[in-house]
Each structure stands twice: as structure tokens, then as C-alpha cells.
């Protein structure tokens, strides 16, 4: 039997004697007898060695692809060794939310630094200590925009379907009207957007680059949304945001997104990390924890969790959100990633994503019958169709240990990052050609 008990059986006996009890079961006199379980029907405890063997065996049932050409919300980027080592430091890994600032300055400062970096990436004034993921960040952002007379939420259909579905679930039991703005040629249909925006619109959400990889004309959209006096929420890929016009530059009201690309492993979908950044004027509407700078009684710089009057432990049912936990360790990981790569490093990653995705598209469209579904400008994802079924293409690639594009209604959604070498891209093109019978 394994355990992590702090005291020996002898010490436990001693403690029992001290409190005047005979055995451990006496501790549960308040629980009705019929409720006490006799035997917990799970397997007996095992040695650490045995546990490792079981789990490693389980892991072997997974297929680890040697190259990945799939994104759709989870992105394969290089994670520097230092990022993994620092985020595994025990103090960061095991501490609680920094309620006691006097012994949590390191953690609080790391959050403050993370907040600064996210503001820089998005071009916004303020952000919080993180939220669960990109999809929930979008839902929380919607909540920030709702007003008594503005309860209509417009979302572009070019947004990641999981973000849309999460937002719908979040507000499913409230009187909020959702309006989907359709896609046209790979981008949001602006004529429909213009038509649907009115004085009951709370906000419009668009993803940049969008789910299909397209670069949306966000400046035009921002103007359109603001003309209706609604709020503009931009869901951004943080890598793309280092080279594309930022949410701040186009005067978006809120920038959200998932910063998994900044040093967080794919890990079958989580934990990832959501960010939510906004302009100064909406700072008090942010949900969750926020680290702020202040001074201590000696007048020295100090950091503390601030603006707590918004939060559930103070406001209970009147709180801005129910959020208690965030993704602090992932935020730290993001910060170490951004510090290691620096502006130049991340922009290099972004530029490589862009160049390599375009290189793959060029190669694929040389194949007879392979077409991109639209001509919109794109970042590192795009959709193609084939003269053969998607499954045929994917099976061919899988045989060669390559995870191909993600099958969507439109076709295969490809993603290329700095991790994909020229050699790998050329191999994909050759294999697809073969799969297409050429």
C-alpha cells in the first residue's frame, strides 16, 4: 500500500491516545453507521514502480506522430528546455493563490510580469492573471459587455466552433440572443454583420486569424461595430499577434485568446490558458485574479492581488464571475517562454509559420485537383479539398507517421509551424500527390 502520510503508525497511536480515542474509526462517530463503507472496491495500492509501468503501458496505446500538420485550436511549437525546468520549480508548482503577499512576492511579481507581457502582445492596457482557456475567455468577455438594453451577442461563424459552443453553453440559461454572422469566402460576411448590428447589440466576436486561418479585416470590422456603439471582442492567436495588427491598434475593446502556443504542451487538450485583456476603462469588469503594484509599510515596491471587490469571495452572488482558480502555472510558463524567446524570437516563429504555411500551400496546389477553398489572406492555417476523399489523404500520411490537416466540413484544415521542416513539408506534398493517384 502506498501512502504519503506524514506520521508513522506509532505517532498516530500517540495522537489518538492524546485526544482520548482508541482507533481511527472512532474519528467518525458523527457519521451515521449505515453510511460507513466497509470496503472501497478499488484495486489495492501499488509500488511507484508498478504505477509507472501501468501508465507507461497505457501511454504506449497512443500514437505519437513525428510530424504534426494540425492546429485548429491546439498548436505545436518548440518549447525551450528552460521553460519546462522553470515552470517545474516546486515553489511555483505547489503554492496556493497568493493570499499572503508578504511571503508570495515572487509569485505575485511573476503574475505582474505575465500581465505586462500579455498587454504587450495584444496591445491592451490591462489583463488578469489568466482564465481557463481561450473558449472560456471569450465567454467571460461577452459577460463584460452585456448591458440592460444590450443583450444581443454577434459571433462570426469563422470563430473556432469550440469557442462558439462554449459561449452558447455559458449563456444558455440567460435571456441572451446569439446571432451568427456567416462566413463568405473564408472571412466574416461584412454585409450581414452591418445589417445585424443595432442598438441592442452588446458585442461582436471575431477570431484573428480565424478558424480557417484567414486574416480578417479587423480595422473595418472595428469601425462597423463601434458605429453601432457595441463592443468589439477580438479572439487572437498570440503568435500571430506579434506580427499582425494588434487588438489595441484596431481599437478593439477586449482581446481574448489561448496562449497555449507559448510554451504549453499539446497534452490532449489541457491544461491550456486563456487570456483576457482590455482597455483601461473596462478594467473593473475583468473577472478573476489581478496582480497589482503597490507599496508596503516601509514604502518599498510590493505586489498584491487587487481589485478584489469584484470577486466571488467578497461579492458572492453579485460577483463579476464565479472564477476562483485560474491557470497560474501556465501563465508562468507563458512568461518564461516570452522571456526566453524575446520579441525577436517570437516574431521569427510567427514569420516562419507564415512562410512555411504558404510554402505548403504552394506545394499542395501544384497537385492536380487540390484546391484551396478560398483566396483570403491567411496566417498559418488554410483549408484544401482533394480529388479523393480526405480519409485517403490522411491514411497515407498516417502510414508515414504524419498527422495531416484536420477534417472539417469544408475540407482539410492544415496548420504549419516552425516545427515543420522543409523536408517534412516536401514529404507531405509527395505523399498527398501519391494519395491523389498522381
Amino acid at each position, binding site marked *: 500500500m502506498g501512502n504519503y502520510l506524514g506520521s508513522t503508525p506509532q505517532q498516530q497511536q500517540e495522537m489518538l491516545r492524546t485526544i482520548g480515542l482508541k482507533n481511527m474509526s472512532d474519528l467518525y462517530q458523527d457519521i451515521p453507521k449505515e453510511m460507513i463503507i466497509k470496503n472501497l472496491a478499488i484495486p489495492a495500492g501499488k509500488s511507484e514502480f508498478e504505477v509507472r509501468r501501468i501508465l507507461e503501458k497505457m501511454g504506449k496505446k497512443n500514437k505519437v506522430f513525428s510530424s504534426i500538420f494540425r492546429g485548429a485550436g491546439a498548436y505545436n511549437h518548440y518549447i525551450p528546455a528552460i521553460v519546462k525546468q522553470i515552470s517545474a520549480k516546486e515553489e511555483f508548482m505547489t503554492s496556493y*493563490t497568493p493570499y499572503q*503577499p508578504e511571503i508570495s512576492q515572487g509569485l505575485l511579481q511573476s503574475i505582474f510580469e505575465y500581465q505586462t*507581457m500579455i498587454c504587450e502582445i495584444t496591445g491592451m492596457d490591462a489583463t488578469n492573471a489568466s482564465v481557463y482557456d481561450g473558449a472560456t475567455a471569450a465567454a467571460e468577455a461577452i459577460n463584460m459587455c452585456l448591458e440592460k438594453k444590450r443583450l444581443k451577442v454577434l459571433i462570426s461563424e469563422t470563430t473556432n466552433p469550440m469557442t462558439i459552443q462554449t459561449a452558447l453553453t455559458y449563456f444558455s440559461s440567460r435571456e441572451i440572443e446569439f446571432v451568427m454572422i456567416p462566413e463568405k469566402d473564408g472571412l466574416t460576411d461584412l454585409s450581414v454583420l452591418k445589417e445585424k448590428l443595432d442598438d441592442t447589440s452588446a458585442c461582436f466576436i471575431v477570431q484573428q486569424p480565424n478558424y480557417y486561418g484567414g486574416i480578417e479585416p479587423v480595422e473595418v470590422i472595428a469601425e462597423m461595430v463601434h458605429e453601432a456603439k457595441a463592443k468589439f471582442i477580438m479572439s487572437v492567436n498570440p503568435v500571430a499577434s506579434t506580427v499582425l495588427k494588434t487588438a489595441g491598434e484596431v481599437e478593439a475593446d477586449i482581446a481574448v485568446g489561448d496562449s497555449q502556443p507559448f510554451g504549453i504542451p499539446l497534452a490532449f487538450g489541457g491544461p491550456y490558458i486563456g487570456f483576457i485583456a482590455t482597455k483601461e476603462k473596462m478594467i473593473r469588469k475583468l473577472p478573476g485574479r489581478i496582480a497589482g503594484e503597490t507599496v*508596503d509599510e516601509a514604502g518599498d515596491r510590493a505586489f498584491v492581488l487587487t481589485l478584489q471587490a469584484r470577486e466571488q469571495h467578497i461579492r458572492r452572488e453579485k460577483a463579476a464571475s*464565479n472564477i476562483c482558480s485560474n*491557470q497560474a502555472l501556465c501563465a508562468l510558463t507563458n512568461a518564461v517562454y516570452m522571456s*526566453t524567446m524575446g520579441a525577436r524570437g517570437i516574431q521569427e516563429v510567427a514569420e516562419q509559420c507564415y512562410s512555411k504555411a504558404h510554402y505548403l500551400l504552394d506545394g499542395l496546389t501544384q497537385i492536380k485537383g487540390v484546391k484551396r477553398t478560398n483566396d483570403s489572406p491567411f496566417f498559418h492555417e488554410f483549408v484544401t479539398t482533394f480529388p479523393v476523399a480526405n480519409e485517403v489523404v490522411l491514411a497515407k500520411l498516417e502510414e508515414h507517421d504524419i498527422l495531416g490537416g484536420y477534417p472539417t466540413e469544408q475540407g482539410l484544415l492544415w496548420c504549419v509551424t516552425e516545427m515543420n521542416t522543409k523536408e517534412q513539408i516536401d514529404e507531405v506534398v509527395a505523399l498527398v500527390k501519391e494519395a491523389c493517384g498522381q
Partner: protein
Amino acid sequence: MKLIFERSVEGYYNEMISPCDVPTTALPEEMKRQKELHLPSLPQPEISRHYTELADATFGINNGFYPLGSCTMKYNPKINDEMATYPAFASIHPLQPEHTVQGSLEVFTMTEMLLKEITGMNAITFQPAAGAHGEFTSLLMIKAYHKKHGQPQRNKIIVPDSAHGTNPASVAMTGMITVNIPSDNYGCVDIEALRAAVGEDTAGLMLTNPNTAGIFDKNILEITKIVHDAGGLNYYDGANLNAIMGVARPGDMGFDIIHLNLHKTFSTPHGGGGPGSGAVGCKSLLKPFLPDYYPVKKGAEIGFTRPVNSIGLVKGFYGQFSVFLRALTYILFLGSEGISSASKSAVLNANYMLHELKDIFEVPYGESCMHEFVISLDKLKKETGVTALDIAKGILDHHMYPPTMYFPLTVPEALMVEPPETESKERMDDAIAVYRKLYEDAHKNPEAFHEYPLHAQIHRVDEVRAARHPIVRYDFALENNE
């Protein structure tokens, strides 16, 4: 400590990725970011030192006694972390074809099987990201259940006044209404108040048992029956499950749905505030309402399904995978006896500390407890002016994390102590001695307390200033003006 931006020197580039090996394509000028991107720029050794300095100024579980009530700060086993970073799990894309992720899917079904037995539930979803997210998910399921059964008018959730703040906040997010009911002298549910509160509009009850005072509510079967008889459902807030794992099961107490904090009870790290994992378990009657992507065995393979009346997705993908993989590692290691022995030992620890402190501190909820207990410093404050906050700050000078302060809200000057099973007798004896000494000092020299802590990283902070003039990011313009 300097901020990482203050340590930055322009021009460093850490060579992490290879140069581009395909012809470069330039981004169209009109789409380009114009604003300069300020990120740190410093050599790797300096980055390493910076974060070591920050880590040194952070108090983790391994830095000392950590009896934070309601938070279950138990030791985070190292094997859990190794399994979570094992490449066969860590490098799997969430959208790989199902036949290539059978190992990951087995993590779901095996963890579910084990937790079903521990909690007495019939199905578990791992999608919720944290405890509060699990509450929200559960409430949406309760609401959907009533709607499906033709009773959409059931929109009131009964919450005892001693509950965690997340309970009423989660209720508000679902558009339902919180009905607060008072607790009795032991922090338990006031049965008469509950009877008076239930009715045709009752959607459910949210309860944690043991409650936030660390007391097991003896009337639990009567409580859940009152709610069931009125047509409502019972929700179990798993915040305090560490008291009763392997001893008693929420499923046998009349609860229909529960959330678990895997980052408390099942030893996964708190990470300085997250990521957690708020798995939700339910009885069969609520199973059709579970969130999307519920893994089930289809023949020889495991695959995701959408439950027939699913509330939908509550986040992207399927949950905090590496977190519940850690929980699985923990449960496999402990096994049947280890799980119950963990809870029993936690309860023993709490009772031992309570016993050694109750002669001097007020104990509003009696002389025995479950895995945590509450002391009130109200009398001490009246006698000496020293508050719960002052005592907590005094504890900091002894290299210990203080108990949870001012919770539950129903007890004045409360300190809530939870010494989990991984704390040793020696550590507790040290803490007992410190608490007792501070109590004596408070009578001898109360003035000194307002200065505490003396030996921490900083003195007490000006929180009012932080909130009035929020500075939540570093200002690079300031740097340039200097």
C-alpha cells in the same frame, strides 16, 4: 527584486529555433503590426537567475507547514509530475483520430471508474477546469434536468450561509436565484429553515459535507430527503472530500451530483492558483445532461460521445488532461486502503491540533472535527486588540503559512486550520507551539502585533492604494523617460 523588464538589455537573442529553411513570404504591409513589441531581452543565465529569485520569494508546500483551511494543501507527489510530462501523453494533439489516442482515453475511463467508486456516483465528466467551473456545470445540468421534466419554474438554489462564495456566484451565472439559509450553532443546516425554504420553485441544494466549519452534518439523510421530497436535486460541493474518502460516499448520502477538486483531494498541484480540475460526478438520472465529449467504450475502442440531452461544451476540448492524469497516478499508488487511510489521517491530524489548542482558543463548533477546524479570535481581539489578521501575520515570521483567515464568514475573527495527512506530528507540534506563543505574546505585548511580519520578504502592503490606482502592468514609457 528587479522586474524582468528592468533586467533587460537590448540585443540578446537566445537561439531556440533553426533559421527558416523555406523561401520566405512577406506579410502584406497593411496587415502588419506597427506597435513595437516590448518583451524581455536577456541571456539565458540571467533568465534562470531571475526566476530562481522569484521562486525563493514564493512559499510552496515544501517550504513549510501549510494548514490553509478549505484548500487541502497536501504534498504533491513527484511521480504524478513525471507521468504528466511523459511524452506519450504530453505530446498528443487533442484532435488526433480516436484510434491513435486510446491511451489518453483510457486515462479518462480508468479515472472515472475509480472516482465513481470513491464518490458513489454513476458517471464523471472531466471537462470542468476548476471547482467553481464544476459548480457552474452542475447547476446547468440541474437546470436542464428540470426543464426536460417540464418544471422550468424550478429556479431557486438553496445555499447555507456558511458556503464558499463561489456557490452563490455560480448560481448567478446560470440565471437562477440563491436562497440563503442560516446555519445552526454547529454550522450545520438548520432543518426548520430548510423545510421552510423548499417548495415548487426549488431547483436544488448546494452543500458541502463536512461543512465549512469542519463538522459532518449528522442530519444529512434527512436534509437530502427534504430536498428530494420537494422535487429538488442535491448538489455536493467536493471541497471537503478529503475528510471522508474511502469512509463514506456522497452518493450514499442522497446527493445527485457533485464536483471534485482534484487539485485538493487528489494531490495535484495548486500551481500558485491553477490549473485545477473540477471533475463532476452524477447519478444516472443526470447522465444524459453531461457536457459534450463524454468518453465511453464502443466495442474494443474508447470514443467520445455526446450525451443525449447534453448541456454542451463548458470549455475547449475535454478538460485539464495532465491534471487528472496526475490524480489517476495518485489513486493507483494509494489504492483502496491508502485512500481511506489518507482521509482518516487527515481527520486525526485536525483533531490532534484542535485538542492541543482548544484550552486557549475559542472553538465555536465544539471539541471534535473532521479534517479541519475553526478557531475564533473574537475574545482575544476584545481583550488585546490583536486580530486574526495580526496572528496570521505573526505566524509568517515562523516560516509557516497561516491558516485561512476570516472564513467562514459566519464566525468573527475566524482562523480555519487544515493540516492534511501529509503533515507530520513534528510539524504540527511546532505549529501548536507557535500559535500558543503568539497567543501569550498578544496578551503581553499587543502593540508589537500591528508591525508583523518583521522577517518576511516585505512588510504589510497598502491594499487600498493598489485598488484605488490600479497598476497592473509595467509601463515601458516610464523607463524611457528616466
